[in-house]
């Protein structure tokens, strides 16, 4: 979990590779890539679920046109989540959650 927000830490890669051997650098690269992929999946999960009510194209919340499932109770998709700037805001919220759980990461002003 220490590898969260990898785009933020991407420039550590070169410094790490200079200070460590090829084997540890390889593991570091794999870990950074896995953290990046994990964040990508988390952002995609929330944006697809809240934006269009589907996961991997499957309508998990019901049909918005025929008003089945959750939509029968008046739920509406938040089309705002489909806009690309919302990815940045979701990343900001992920950083918020991560740093609340791990206060050592909090930056000083």
């Amino acid at each position, binding site marked *: 979990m220490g590898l969260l927000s990898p785009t933020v830490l991407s420039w550590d890669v*070169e410094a790490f590779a200079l200070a460590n051997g090829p084997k540890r650098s390889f593991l570091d690269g794999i870990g950074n890539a896995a953290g990046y992929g994990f964040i990508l999946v988390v952002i995609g999960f929330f944006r697809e679920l809240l934006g269009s009510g589907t996961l991997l194209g499957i309508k998990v919340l019901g049909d918005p046109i025929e008003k089945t499932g959750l939509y029968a109770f008046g739920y509406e998709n938040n089309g705002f989540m489909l806009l690309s700037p919302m990815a940045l805001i979701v990343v900001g919220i992920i950083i918020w959650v991560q*740093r609340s759980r791990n206060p050592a990461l909090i930056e000083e*002003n």
Partner: protein
Amino acid sequence: MLEHIELFFKSIFIDNMVFATFLGMCSYLAVSKKVTTAVGLGAAVIFVLAVTVPLNWLLDQYLLRDGALAWLGPEYADYNLSFLSFILFIATIATMVQLVEIVVEKFSPSLYNSLGIFLPLIAVNCAILGGSLFMQSRDIQTLGLAFNYGLSSGIGWFLAILAIAAIREKIRYSNVPAPLRGLGITFIITGLMAIGFMSFGGMLTGGDEAAPQEEVVAVAPTQEVSGLTADATQQDLTQKENGTVQEETPATNNLINE
């Protein structure tokens, strides 16, 4: 001249490198803590973009694209070297960044130290390579337009990093929740700014797209009615006055609604 002005404002505001295409985010987030360093990096990006995009345009035009080698002789006219775009563009960019680094180290050591690793990282800045690749894919026609595109994309990136650096200097005195301090709030502010910049999208195309839609809406009902109210349309045709015809169509619309 008009297309130069249009491209200039389009690249700065509508296709802003940071807020519309999200390119060059890493140095944008890392170097935006102080306005002075942000201005230094922004100026370096403007220079590199304004030089590399026209250079890469020349490479694309006379070396890479399909049939570009025809100037060497007719037997070379069939070659298509566009698969070499990345390596040649990157080589041009790395050369220019090396030059900028030497010049900055010589003339402004304090800026060189405050930029740190982010000055050489301009070489792999996605905004720079993105500028050259967008230039290729948008099929920019002349060298002057390519220079204009590089310069104005750089100015857009400069404005973005200047704005976020000024906001981050001011927000230091605000009561931001502790886990959001630093990068978290910067991500959220950038998202809000990007939503704001989406409103520039209608700046150039708004007038052209709105007009035909209104015509379609107004014409379609009258054509449906024309068969039903044949007497009314015949009267209109006999009068043959545009003013009366235009007065009649709202009336028929009201009939449909009723």
